[in-house]
């Protein structure tokens, strides 16, 4: 139900009023007042609740990438500033003030940043569509409104200007602080080692940020892989389900609803290619749930707060869904309203409530003051299944035979399932036809294979993993470019030193070792810093992880090794260039 609150009415006031209304509701036969819960949920919260945290994490990841890219640009600007010391000194000698020079350099860095922003916008025309195509269908609210508009343009412009100024400041400051005499005496050369600390710090920061992102992506990937291999407790292959809702106006009583279900099951069972058919009101991964408690025979107390799922199922449902019957028997058509009440429990219920005993024959009831006919005998024990999601723990469940259920809202929505010998989707048309034959006015609420439901259940983690994976790959590439840039610049700056070392006996291996050792030192510092950051940051992912701790040591080590390898690969090109330095040329360079 949707409603707009009157001006001045708070959410809590509306909630209180709604609860009063529910207390005064006139109940129909078979309905229990405790089955109705009234809750006011703001529409915005309803729409964004599930994805809010997820989107915030992605926004954080994008921020990290922006920082890494900015660090790269700052490094380039620092290198450029080092090469322009003499120019700045000449300008100063000609009368330019420091502020004037800084203004010039900041204008240049902002122009570079704006050019980058413009290129990014062009790329985003394609990129937004590509990202949106990764999104799971129907799970991100208002996704159709995502587009490049005036706000995005203004934001990009703002970010470009701000990053241009902020990350241009340090290079501009460095380029203009040289002593005039010293800079002029350089005669076109640059001083080795100047700004090296700052450049190193920027690369270390880049590596650290990349490690945080990679660790997040690694954890998500591991979680997703575990999710893919999880046993749902049922066999989803070759099962097609069709959900039907019976309108109250036509199906006013339980026997009428049950008659419909029986006719449907009979038709479905006779379809060619159908091995077995069954029905359940709460299909696994179907998004609907009825939970509750019950009483044990002999006055034994239930564990505090112990709740179970309460699906009602048809005979053959367990076989159709591939849920193993561990002990006892399945329901039959003889388990109807005139027969003694029976239930089947899941294995965890049997273990929890009757440890070391056989649950078969034990009796339970839903009534606080049960009459003799209210007792339900346990006739079977089945496997636990993951009813509400692959990432959720298996739910304890108490299964009711649908022919003994009188609650209308339990019977009003039913999912019919068929297990087929081949591709279950071939039966889709036949299932629809069967429904038309039984009641031509009923629409199909949902027709889906169990495999599709499993895919849909894993769609969000898949999306999160892909997106975070793409972001971290980008971060890794940017960090590698950063490492390459710093080392390549350093090798150019140290050509003279390398030449001296070679003249003094350094071999190719010594030079290679010298450059790669620096690579590893930068990578090591970045990895250490990043690991500390990742320990703090990956906690926010805990909610999205399945069977993986946010501090998973295997992921942390694997990511660190990957990053070290990428850093070494990035450092190898400048290192090899260093080994090709001709000492004669390098020494004459002086």
């Amino acid at each position, binding site marked *: 139900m949707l409603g707009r609150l009157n001006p001045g009415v708070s959410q809590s006031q509306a909630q209180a009023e709604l609860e009063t209304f529910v207390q005064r509701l006139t109940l129909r036969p078979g309905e229990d007042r405790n089955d109705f819960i009234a809750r006011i949920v703001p529409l915005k919260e309803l729409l964004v609740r599930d994805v809010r945290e997820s989107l915030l994490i992605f926004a954080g990841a994008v921020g990290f990438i922006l920082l890494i890219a900015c660090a790269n640009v700052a490094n380039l600007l620092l290198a450029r500033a080092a090469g322009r010391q003499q120019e700045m000194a000449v300008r100063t000698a000609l009368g330019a003030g420091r502020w004037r020079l800084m203004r010039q350099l900041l204008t240049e860095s902002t122009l570079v940043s704006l050019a980058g922003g413009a290129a990014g916008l062009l790329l985003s025309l394609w990129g937004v569509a590509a990202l949106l195509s990764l999104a799971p269908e129907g799970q991100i609210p208002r996704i159709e409104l995502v587009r490049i508009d005036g706000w995005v343009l203004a934001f990009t412009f703002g970010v470009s200007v701000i990053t241009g100024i902020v990350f241009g400041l340090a290079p501009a400051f460095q380029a203009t602080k040289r002593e005039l005499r010293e800079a002029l005496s350089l005669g076109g050369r640059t001083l*080795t080692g100047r700004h090296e600390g700052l450049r190193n710090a920027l690369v270390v920061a880049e590596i650290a940020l990349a490690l945080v992102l990679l660790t997040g992506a690694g954890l998500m990937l591991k979680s997703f892989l575990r999710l893919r291999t999880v046993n749902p407790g049922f066999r989803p292959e070759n099962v097609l389900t069709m959900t039907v809702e019976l309108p109250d106006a036509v199906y006013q009583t339980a026997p009428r609803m049950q008659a419909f279900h029986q006719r449907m099951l009979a038709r479905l069972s006779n379809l060619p290619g159908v091995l077995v058919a069954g029905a359940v009101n709460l299909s696994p991964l179907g998004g609907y749930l009825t939970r509750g408690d019950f009483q044990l025979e002999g006055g034994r107390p239930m564990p505090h707060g112990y709740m179970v799922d309460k699906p009602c199922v048809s005979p053959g449902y367990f076989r159709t869904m591939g849920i193993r019957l561990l002990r006892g028997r399945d329901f039959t058509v003889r388990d109807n309203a005139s027969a003694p009440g029976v239930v089947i429990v899941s294995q965890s219920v049997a273990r929890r409530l009757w440890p070391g005993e056989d649950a078969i024959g034990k009796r339970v009831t839903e009534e606080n003051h049960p009459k003799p006919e209210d007792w339900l005998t346990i006739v079977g024990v089945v496997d636990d299944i993951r009813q509400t999601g692959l990432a959720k723990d298996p739910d304890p469940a108490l299964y009711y035979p649908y022919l003994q259920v009188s609650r209308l809202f339990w019977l009003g929505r039913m999912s019919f399932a068929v297990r087929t010998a081949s591709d279950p989707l071939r039966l889709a048309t036949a299932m629809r036809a069967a429904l038309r034959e039984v009641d031509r006015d009923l629409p199909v609420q949902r027709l889906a294979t169990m495999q599709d439901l499993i895919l849909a259940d894993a769609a969000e983690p898949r999306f999160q993993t892909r997106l975070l994976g793409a972001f971290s790959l980008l971060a890794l590439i940017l960090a590698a470019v950063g490492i390459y840039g710093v080392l390549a610049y350093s090798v150019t700056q140290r050509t003279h030193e390398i030449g*001296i070392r070679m003249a003094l006996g350094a071999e190719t291996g010594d030079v290679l070792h010298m450059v790669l050792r620096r690579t590893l030192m930068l990578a090591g510092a970045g990895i250490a810093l990043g690991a500390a950051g990742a320990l703090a940051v990956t906690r926010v992912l805990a909610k999205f992880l399945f069977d993986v701790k946010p501090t998973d040591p295997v992921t942390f080590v694997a990511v660190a090794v990957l990053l070290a390898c990428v850093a070494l690969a990035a450092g190898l090109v400048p290192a090899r260039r260093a080994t090709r330095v001709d000492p004669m040329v390098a020494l004459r360079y002086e």
Partner: protein
Amino acid sequence: MEPMIRLNNIEKYYEAGYGKTFVLRRITLDIKEGEFVTIMGPSGAGKSTLLSILGMLDGSWTGEFYFAEQPVHKLHTKQRVEINKKYIGFVFQSYHLIDNLTVYENLDIPLSYRNIKSAERSGLVCDVLDRFHIVGKKDLYPSQLSGGQQQLVAVARAVIANPKLILADEPTGNLHSAQGKEIMELFKKLNDEGTTIVQVTHSETNAQYGNRIINLADGWLAN
């Protein structure tokens, strides 16, 4: 006794369009162990190039070159570097100390490339610091030293690995006369102690410290 260095028809040239620009032409000469040889000639005569070939820094030349009876012209780069490490020390006009290393660390560099253990290296550096009277300068950076002091450190670095041959490329070119004299006296002393020295210089005065002068002109031996 075979000479320490024997050059036979050494030539070096650069490809220039359809022709060749020669830097050295048919250089044939011997240098005996213990000699103090001075290479002289105008700028562009090929003096520094010849010194680089003698020091194994330049591998692209033709002809025959024997060093301590080993045919350098037949050796691979790695083997030439080994000869460099084993027998040769360099002194340059511009000192070529490494700016971001202290005097101590600069002296340690040649030893670090010769697989000498750390403790032994430390002893050798201390000996040389003592021998060249620069113990007080060991923690200073090159920029904190005068030109003469820097060249003194460069000579100390050249001799630290106990080379049989020192190649000096205009070693006093950036020094004033008093400093230059001090360095040349040092070379003379090292030569007296048995080290073979080949220097490139424009200075007649410095040439007098040696016992033989080789003149180069346009890449040719002029005498």
